[in-house]
Each structure stands twice: as C-alpha cells, then as structure tokens.
C-alpha cells in the first residue's frame, strides 16, 4: 500500500530515534542472537520491530555501508548511531553490536586452542571446518544469481577466482587490476 492516507494509519511510519541505552541494548541483542549473519536480524529489528527506519531508508543506508570498506553490519551501526547521537551514538551502537560476540568467540577460541590436541575436539573441528567451507560456497553461488545471464560479469568473476585461487595474487593487486576492467565492461548494467 502506498503511504497516501497517513490519517488512517494506526502506527506512524517511523518511531522517534532511540536513546543511547536503548540503542546499546538493541544492538546487543542483535549481536547476541545473530547466528550465521547479523544483517537479516538487524533489518527486522530496525525496520519491522522498532520502526526507526522505513524499508527504503534501511536499503539506502545498507547500500552505502556495502559500498564503503569494512564490515557491512558494523558500518550500519556506525551510520545509524551517528545519525541519531553523533560520535557517541556510533560508539554506543558498535560496542553493543560487538561486546557479546567478541566475548563468546574469544571463549570458544580459548577452548579450541587449549584442547585441540584432543582427538574428539580435533575431529569435531575437522567436521565444523568442512561444513563452514560449504556454507561459504553456498553463499558465493547464491550471490552469483544476479549475474548468471551476464557473460561479461561471469568472465570477471572467473578471473577473480583464478587470480586468488590459482595465482594466489594479493587482494590489493586483484582489486587494482580487475575493478577498473569490471567497471568498464559492466557499465551498461548500471
């Protein structure tokens, strides 16, 4: 439904910006509950549950954050926190997002490094690693679907894989060489 009759809408399109403690708490819960990718959970919290942004505003923010270097979800936290509360908001959202996951991952890492000599732990990690590699493969195949009918884009993708896997070129070199070529080849898609 287009937003043409706001008078009949029972809830406003977006809620007022959160306070710093609410910001911290909500990013904390997203970080803690976000298994296998935080982004979908963050979108649900920000757009559907808290109504801090409309769906279009979220997409716009996300496309900026994917465009900039760094971890996408961290960039989302920095952008939204900063929009509402300046630098303090950015730091609050980022700390909320990362505090619990860092504690969990360090604890698990310490357990792994302490007991990896045990056969059961070593075998469990062999299985976990194999499954995780399959997870990344499936992500690659899934995000490849928008380019599957574009031979030029597929050629760039194949060149990227070959440069990294077969030639083992540094990422910096791959990006410097292939990004300009890819932009030139795919400009009609924009």
């Amino acid at each position: 439904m287009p937003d043409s009759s706001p008078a009949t809408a029972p809830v406003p399109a977006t809620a007022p910006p959160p306070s710093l403690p609410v910001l911290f708490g909500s990013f904390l819960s997203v970080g803690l509950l976000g298994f296998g990718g935080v982004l979908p959970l963050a979108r649900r919290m920000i757009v559907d549950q808290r109504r801090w942004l409309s769906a279009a505003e979220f997409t716009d923010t996300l496309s900026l954050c994917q465009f900039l270097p760094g971890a996408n979800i961290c960039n989302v936290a920095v952008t939204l926190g900063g929009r509402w509360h300046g630098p303090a908001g950015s730091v609050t959202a980022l700390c909320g997002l990362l505090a619990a996951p860092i504690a969990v991952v360090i604890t698990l890492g310490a357990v792994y490094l302490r007991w990896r000599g045990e056969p059961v732990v070593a075998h469990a990690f062999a299985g976990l690693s194999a499954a995780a590699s399959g997870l990344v493969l499936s992500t690659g195949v899934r995000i490849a679907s928008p380019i599957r009918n574009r031979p030029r884009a597929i050629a760039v993708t194949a060149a990227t894989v070959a440069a990294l896997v077969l030639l083992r070129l540094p990422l910096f070199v791959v990006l410097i060489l292939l990004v300009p070529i890819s932009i030139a080849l795919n400009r009609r898609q924009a």
Partner: protein
Amino acid sequence: MSGSPLPTLALLFTELSMLAIGGANALVPEMQRQVQAEGWMQPSEFAALFALAQASPGPNMLVVTLVGWQVAGFSGALTATAAFIVPSSILTYVVAGVWQRFREARWRRVVQAGLTPVTVGLILAAGVLLCRAAVSDVPTLLLSLGTAAILLATGLHPLWLLAAGAALGAAGLL
C-alpha cells in the same frame, strides 16, 4: 619472527579492512594468504578459526579477533579487532554525513555494477580456498559439498549444518 607481532597485526588488519568491499568473507583469501606468509598458522588452522567464527553469534568478521588471539593472545585479539573496525568506522562516519548528496549519482551505480562480479569472485574464491584447507579426504569433501547443496536447496538455518558437521566429526565418522 622478532619483537612484538602487534604492530604487524595492526597494520595488516587496517589494510584488510580498507579492502573489504564485499563484506568480511570476501577477505578470506587475502587473510589466509597473509597469515600463512607471516608464518602464523597453516591453512587448516585458519579454516578451523574461520569455522569457529561462523558458528558463533555476531558478525562473521570475528575471525579477525580469533586470528589476533591465536597470534598474540588477548592483546592480539584487541589489536586486530580495533585495527579492523576503527579506521573503517571513522571513514563510514564521515562519508555517511555527505552521502545524501550523491546517492543518486550515476557514477555510483556504474561503480556498484562493476564491483558486484568482483565481489562474487571474492566469495567463491573464499569458499574454494576454505574447502581446500578443510577437506582432507572423501568424507570431508562430501560434507563440504553436501552442506553447500543442502543450504542452496532448502531454507535450513546454517547453524544446524555446522552443528551436524561438528557432531559427525566428534563421532569419528569423518
């Protein structure tokens, strides 16, 4: 290696974060290459740390924290994480302020259309390299490819398959 590895960690992960155009998984090929070149760990150890980060809650960039932990303990974990997050966050903060001005600009869509095929290649390369590091025999190969196939064919949550992989391994079936 002589001296503290902390400056190397800081430099490496700041540099990596600036190259992260397709999210943290796109950095896996480079991260794996660098930690091996520094003599910090073998590809199989890196694959295990990566798997651990995948199985943990939170952003999947946390493999950065684990690499830092493995190299230099707690201070290494903090250094690597901060180096990865702080410079790119400052950049994001600054750019987000002026973003509205050029979000409809054509050059931005042109660049984005060019970046997408490269990003896809980065993630696929990450999958292939992790697979090569984690797969040691036919059962682990089947587990890796089977996980990918099941995830593509069903809407199953990845955590179930990671747990199943760990359980199969612990049970001595691999």
